[in-house]
């Protein structure tokens, strides 16, 4: 290596070092540390622990509550994937079809995204536990007369409603940006050819915003597998452990009742593995379709 290369790399290191120090301490070290602890029986308190191989992973696969939380999360992810993207595209297309008033609707639909889902969750809690019973009294509608928080069959949908409320606006903004990128001439040409609004959307707009769909699906997958706040705020995972998602299950395993850091780390690694595999598959599949479209 020449001395010029040396100097260049030295300057590079000086510029990168501050970021690297923080990154190494608070992202890389915990990631590798967590991987290591997942093979130990560490309880988070005492300094002594020993390596126990794959026992944690074997236990996790047989852990009824962990599997239940996994299934609950997968169900949640599937609902979110479809509903969040369909609603976001629908809102984006309809808002973009408006004239001057579109600015107002955009502002309103994005507003919940500015708020923490903890705040949003408590507000929806008020709606579900106070406003709905009142409406049920007045209207007699079955919709309002359910135990939206207490009954796990219904609280799944309460959690879903809250998450959609807090998440749709974000994707809508992305889809709006994509729709604005669709050349006007294409739509006009289709309209002159006599295509109806829906056909224009289906055959002109949709293929053109396909790259945005890849982003939307990616973001939804990523965020809903990690869902924590909306469950924490509405049900805390209860009643019992019936609405636990993976993140809540890991959190409780580590910090709430058992302090089994090693075991919780193994679950955390399983979550990482799932997210990684699904993301890779999703990106591979959608990128291929993007090229074709």
């Amino acid at each position, binding site marked *: 290596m020449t001395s010029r290369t040396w100097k260049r790399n030295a300057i590079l290191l000086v510029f990168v070092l501050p970021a690297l120090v923080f990154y*190494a301490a608070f992202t890389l070290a915990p990631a590798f540390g*967590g991987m290591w602890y997942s093979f130990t029986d560490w309880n988070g308190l005492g300094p002594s622990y020993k390596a126990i191989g794959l026992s944690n992973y074997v236990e996790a696969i047989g852990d009824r509550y962990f599997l239940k939380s996994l299934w609950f999360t997968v169900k949640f992810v599937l609902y979110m994937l479809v509903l969040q993207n369909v609603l976001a595209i629908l809102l984006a297309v309809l808002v973009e*079809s408006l004239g001057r008033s579109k600015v107002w609707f955009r502002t309103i639909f994005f*507003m919940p995204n500015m708020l923490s889902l*903890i705040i949003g969750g408590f507000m929806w809690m008020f709606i579900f536990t106070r406003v709905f019973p009142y409406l049920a009294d007045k209207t007699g509608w079955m919709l309002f007369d359910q135990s939206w928080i207490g009954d796990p069959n219904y609280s799944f949908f309460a959690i879903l409603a809250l998450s959609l409320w807090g998440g749709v606006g974000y994707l809508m903004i992305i889809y709006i940006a994509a729709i604005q990128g669709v050349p006007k001439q294409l739509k006009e040409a289709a309209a002159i050819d006599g295509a109806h609004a829906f056909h224009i959307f289906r055959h002109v707009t949709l293929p053109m915003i396909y790259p945005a769909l890849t982003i939307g699906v990616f973001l939804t997958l990523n965020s809903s597998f990690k869902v924590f706040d909306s469950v924490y705020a509405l049900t805390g995972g209860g009643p019992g452990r019936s609405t636990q998602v993976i993140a809540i299950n890991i959190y409780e395993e580590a910090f709430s009742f058992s302090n089994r*850091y090693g075991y919780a780390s193994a679950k*955390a690694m399983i979550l990482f593995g799932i997210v990684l595999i699904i993301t890779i598959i999703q990106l591979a599949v959608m990128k291929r379709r993007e090229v074709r479209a």
Partner: protein
Amino acid sequence: MNTYRASRADQKDNKPKMNSSGRAGSPRLGRRIGSGAVLLFLLIAAIVTLFPIYMALLNSVKTQGEMLTNILAWPSMPEFGNYVDAFQKTRYLRSLGNTIIVVAVGLTGIILFSSMAGYKLSRTPGKLSAILFGLFVMSTLIPFHSIMITLVTISKELRLQGSTVGLGLLYIGLGVAVAIFLYHGFVKSIPRELDEAAVMDGCGEFRLFFTIILPLLMPITATIAILNTLWMWNDFLLPLLMLTNYKSYTLLLSTNMLFGEYNNDWSAILASLVLAMLPVIILYLALQKYILHGIAEGAIKA
């Protein structure tokens, strides 16, 4: 591209488009019913979106008794005592101050360190540069919950637990990767000749970066600042794990505590929710244009 300007531009484009489809023979009445249905649908969606916020606002100025008799009605006499109550119980000013400290520390570090690293990584060819960049990008898929357990242990070891500044420092470590990625891409749009000319004039590396490059990075810095402020301001789990003493509680933690302690005192809880929302909503309405633009930009590039 500016979202606002873009929306203005296609408003102008709308007119010829409507004319052309009119010529194509689509019946005017059907069209009007169609756009009426669209407007109705959007209005309903907007009402559903705003309903929880409206209910929180409305009932936060009612007495508990009035809330019980008619939850939808306007208060006969606005009761601002709930706000005094919530203000004290959440130690509002201190919680707000704590939140601002966390965000300020985190944001300063993220912007300063990632712009430096992103710039140099983008400009330097070679293996070392590629390896370092790969190292940063690698982690962006790791879910936070997969590292939180060890992160808490490390922060205990470093005596950062319980401190708002410490929490801000943690956010730097968690936030730099994505920010470096965004800076790395943006730097490519700045001509290299600029660096070369400055060096030729005898400008040092640091002066070059801070006086010439950093100001040019402003557009992407704004995007990064918006995304990270939103993230840190609204993050709940990490503060929950890190800030163990109520004196260092952020707004969210104080609100959560109030909710836990006064489970049925909805007037105080709703008032505290409104207080917690207030800074964000004000910021949103004031900087909306930039925020929406930053969101779209950040998502598409990342």
